[in-house]
């Protein structure tokens, strides 16, 4: 039995703050939980805070990309916030660019970006 990463609902937004070193199973669980929650709550946006993550490997990177695509299909925008400089440099070298994933420097800017996106969508 592995732990699950909590998905918090704030208004129309789902907030995920990853605080632990992720095991592969947790990554898969999170992906499933998130899509279930988007449907259940009708959330319009998802913010995934990875500022505590010391590494993002291709497995986690793929989850972030897949998640952005899934949530878009379900009518919600995903913003990944707080990626550390060393993590970004490593991902680039690894060959991952997270194309199609919206990003922001920190949680505050992420929420702001979500609001702007929903405003422009009407």
């Amino acid at each position: 039995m592995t732990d699950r990463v909590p998905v918090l609902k704030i208004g129309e937004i789902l907030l995920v703050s990853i605080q632990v070193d992720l095991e592969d199973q947790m990554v898969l669980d999170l992906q499933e939980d998130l899509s279930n929650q988007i449907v259940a709550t009708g959330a319009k946006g998802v913010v995934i805070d990875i500022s505590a993550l010391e590494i993002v490997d291709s497995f986690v990177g793929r989850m972030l990309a897949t998640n952005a695509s899934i949530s878009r299909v379900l009518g919600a925008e995903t913003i990944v916030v707080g990626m550390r400089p060393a993590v970004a440099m490593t991902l680039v070298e690894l060959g991952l660019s997270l194309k199609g994933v919206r990003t922001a420097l920190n949680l505050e800017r992420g929420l702001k970006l979500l609001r702007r996106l929903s405003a422009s969508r009407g």
Partner: protein
Amino acid sequence: MTTEGNTQLLVETLVAQRDDFLAQWTSTVGEDLQGRLSKAELGHELSELYEAILGALTASGLDGRGEHFAETRSLLIELSRNRARRGFTSTETARSVFALKEVLEPSLAGDEQGAQAYLQFARLLDDLGLLTTEAYIRTREEIISSQAEQLLELATPVVKLWDGVVGVPLVGTLDSARTQVVMEKLLQTLVDTNSTHAIIDITGVPTVDTQVAQHLLKTVVAARMMGAQCTISGIRPQIAQTIVALGIEFGDIPTNASLSDALRQALKEVALDADDDVRGLL
């Protein structure tokens, strides 16, 4: 005469004339270093070394690479590091060891057994002297590489241009080690200053080839993944021509001819952000 006999003779001589030898050794080396090292410090260094050599000789004979000489070797390495850091030459450092030969020569070279023992001891000291040179060079290399690193840091200042906008004026060639440092500093500054825009000005970069373009692209992508926009400015006409002539893919890199254009663009976007602030969070 056996080696054991020679060793015994050496040990006896070194013990009997310890004070004489030490004094002579210290003064020979002292003259060589011309007072750049205090008498007390030198005396302390050499007497420690003398005891270590004597101890090892007594325990195991003349094998300088053996385990009983471990203490002697570590003392010598320490001594060499010290000398290298304080600007002595490698010759001066090695001579600190070789001088002991001169000191011993008159007492041993008198008869045949003594001469034999002396030659064997001289060989040991040669080995130990070489060790100091090795340690000396290693220390100098460390100094050089740490200076190179400092230089790298100095050569890449990341400056805050405006609220939310940081810039790096790049001067000189851009290799992968340098890119690493620039990238790291730039990205960290974005986080520290909560800036969403970065401008890399390459006016001072003499040539842009495929590799430099690759490095720049990596930086742009890394910044984007962190949620910031990175623009390259200062592309001189000749550089633009090379880029096109070489067919370098610059497609994904946002560019501006001049730093002021890039800044104007960035400020426009930062102002849009600020408009949102008025409406509050959530």
